[in-house]
């Protein structure tokens, strides 16, 4: 079994970072699966096979969306930028630039630094006694 989702030694990563990495890896896999089904559907001619694969691709849409929502909930700055881009009509790039600038509060660093975030990211503490 591989542990390719970790870029740093897993034993040095806190549990929250390992969970985050797992969901990022899962998000990537779901996006790949959506792309693969899209290609298969583009060349398939059997209507029954098409119906099966459409249903399967729908599952991947769901999985991808759940992974994304989890990651956005754990990452306030990412969530804030996504809120400025997703489900909006108009120029995607323009929305992206505006959302990034808003989220980083124009601090000029472009790094998503501490001044631009705010949430302490504490969330649930289930499993912790101290």
């Amino acid at each position, binding site marked *: 079994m591989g542990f390719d989702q970790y870029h740093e030694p897993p034993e040095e990563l806190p549990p929250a970072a390992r969970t985050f990495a797992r969901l990022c890896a899962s998000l990537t896999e779901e996006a790949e699966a959506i792309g693969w089904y899209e290609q298969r559907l583009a060349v398939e001619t059997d209507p029954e096979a098409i119906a099966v694969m459409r249903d399967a691709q729908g599952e991947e849409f769901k999985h991808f969306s759940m992974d994304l929502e989890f990651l956005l*909930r754990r990452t*306030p700055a990412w*969530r*804030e930028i996504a*809120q400025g881009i997703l489900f909006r009509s108009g120029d995607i790039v323009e929305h992206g630039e505006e959302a990034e600038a*808003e*989220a980083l*509060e*124009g*601090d000029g*660093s472009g790094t998503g*630094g*501490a*001044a*631009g*975030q*705010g*949430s*302490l*990211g*504490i*969330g*649930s*503490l*289930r*499993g*912790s*006694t*101290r």
Partner: protein
Amino acid sequence: MSHLLRSHAPISEASWTLLDQEARERLAPALAARKLVDFSGPQGWAFSATPTGRTTALESPAEGVSARQRRVLPLVEARSDFAVARQELADADRGAPDPDLEALDRAAHQMAVAENVAVFHGWPGSITGISEATPHDRLPLGQAPDDYPRAVAGAAERLLCSGITGPYGLALGRGQYRRVVETAEHGGYPLLDHLGKILEGPIVWAPGVEGGVVLSLRGGDFLFESGQDLSIGYDSHDRDVVRLYLEQSFSFRVVTPEAAVLLAPS
């Protein structure tokens, strides 16, 4: 721009990181409710109310039309102000390892206590706490720590009688927690371990709680929904100090009142 206005504060990136880390370290040990109840969110600062699924019948606006109004649980906003000396932050930027952040520490503790009190005992007019909702009679903890196992076992048994399965958790007020941690029973067995075996779940330090609360951890019984999770925002500054605040918004619902038993302090 976020309403926290952090980029307007005369605070360096390094000092923001220091303040955020200090706040996390002070909050996490004291946020007892988050260790025991279901947590969802954060949904963001603009999120104002938790849907309840309930409605209230309205008078018909016109013949042939019936009407209902959705009932929601409005979020509460909690804010704790504090000030930090600019000199302390400047010294921290120079590498001073011991900046005076006592006001932040105090605000963090106050915020944690407020959250614990809201969840376990309620917030008048806004939140019904666990001890207000439970239909079970309070069980006395007893005068001596040696009495605690009997009370905790009684609470667990009462939950079982109500069909509430475990594991169970125990939130203990400051004095009660200290007594548990410092006590070994007759055979030298730590009281903390004995209670843990009865509960099959955690025992947490819960400043703000009066006595103790035994509650089921099976999930779905106690719901904490975060709007904006705990954050530090900027208020104002002068030559000497920066005025900041800790803030969050949340709602809390008791879905299964039977799933908790209050242990009254003696």
